[in-house]
């Protein structure tokens, strides 16, 4: 049997054929045993499925099932109310933060530039300091950026005793 005719049988069963064709197919079923058998099979299958009106039940309690839906609804609504930043906050984030960083950089540069000539003009190319506790002296040369540290020998405290005999240290 042609596929087209098989589909017509099915459409007849489902009430999807126009009136004129319905009469034609009904006549064919009455006369043709093969068509009748196929029609009966389709009808039985449809009948079985009609009986099978699902009695599947939700395997969760009403409260538990609802709580998950409620939580998801709350979560989906949250971003719309809280995550949208105000125009002021976004303006600050976009312009003020980079401008602040730039200003800090300029101020730092100006301070460095200002300090260097002053030290030189004052004739302060070096400094010396002494630490009474450890009996250590430091000498700082600003022009070369070098620092020398003298420790007394023989040392009178525990810290100096562990140092090697050559006690000169460089920074």
């Amino acid at each position, binding site marked *: 049997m042609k596929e087209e005719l098989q589909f017509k049988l*099915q459409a007849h069963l489902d009430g999807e054929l126009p009136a004129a064709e319905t009469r034609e197919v009904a006549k064919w079923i009455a006369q043709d045993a093969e068509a009748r058998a196929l029609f009966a099979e389709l009808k039985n299958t449809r009948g079985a499925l009609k009986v099978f009106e699902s009695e599947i039940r939700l395997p969760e309690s009403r409260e538990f099932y609802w709580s998950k839906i409620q939580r*998801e609804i709350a979560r989906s609504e949250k971003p719309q109310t809280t995550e949208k930043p105000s125009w002021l906050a976004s303006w600050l984030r976009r312009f003020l933060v980079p401008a602040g960083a730039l200003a800090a950089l300029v101020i730092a540069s100006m301070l460095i530039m200002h300090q260097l000539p002053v030290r030189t003009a004052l004739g302060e190319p070096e400094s010396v300091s002494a630490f009474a506790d450890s009996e250590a002296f430091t000498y700082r040369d600003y022009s070369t950026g070098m620092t020398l540290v003298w420790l007394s020998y023989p040392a009178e405290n525990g810290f100096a005793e562990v140092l090697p005999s050559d006690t000169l240290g460089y920074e």
Partner: protein
Amino acid sequence: MSDKAYSSADDSALVRAAQNGDMGAFEELVARHRDKIYARAYSMMRNEDEALDLSQEAWVKAWQRLKQFQGESSFATWMTRITINLCLDQLRRQKRQRSESIEAMDEESGGVERQMPVVNVNPTEGLERGELRQRIDQALSQLTYAHRTVIVLHEFEEMEYKEIAKTMGCSIGTVMSRLFYARRKMAALLSDLKRPE
């Protein structure tokens, strides 16, 4: 609205209240239709966890789109359509991940169902309701997703060919073909299940 008022109100009153933001009214709608919505998702997915997730997702979507519901159909029908669409999206995603090219061809051209002899006896005759349901359930789970979907939409949702074609995004001819071969396969599976082992 009080708890008592929720349970005595009809669906349309609950929908109106929910459209105005009444979460209690929406909860009552969920309680009333949860079994049907879950059952529809389960009949399409054949997996308890997926059916639970998708049915809950359908309720969340329904809440978000509640203002769009104008009452052209019943609330239950509208909810079921949302569920079916979510299941179809999920099944399409799963199908893309699998290689079903031969199976897809068979869905429309019939495959082995084309050569099958006609089942002469009613395979469900003389069965208890519970046993019959179990056998149909077993047979449905052996169909491909496209065959099962077309059966669910036509037999359980009572959709016409045209509506099924729109829902599944295919032609009416494809729907007729899929439905025909799905029914033939169901007939064969049910008669096999009836045979004594």
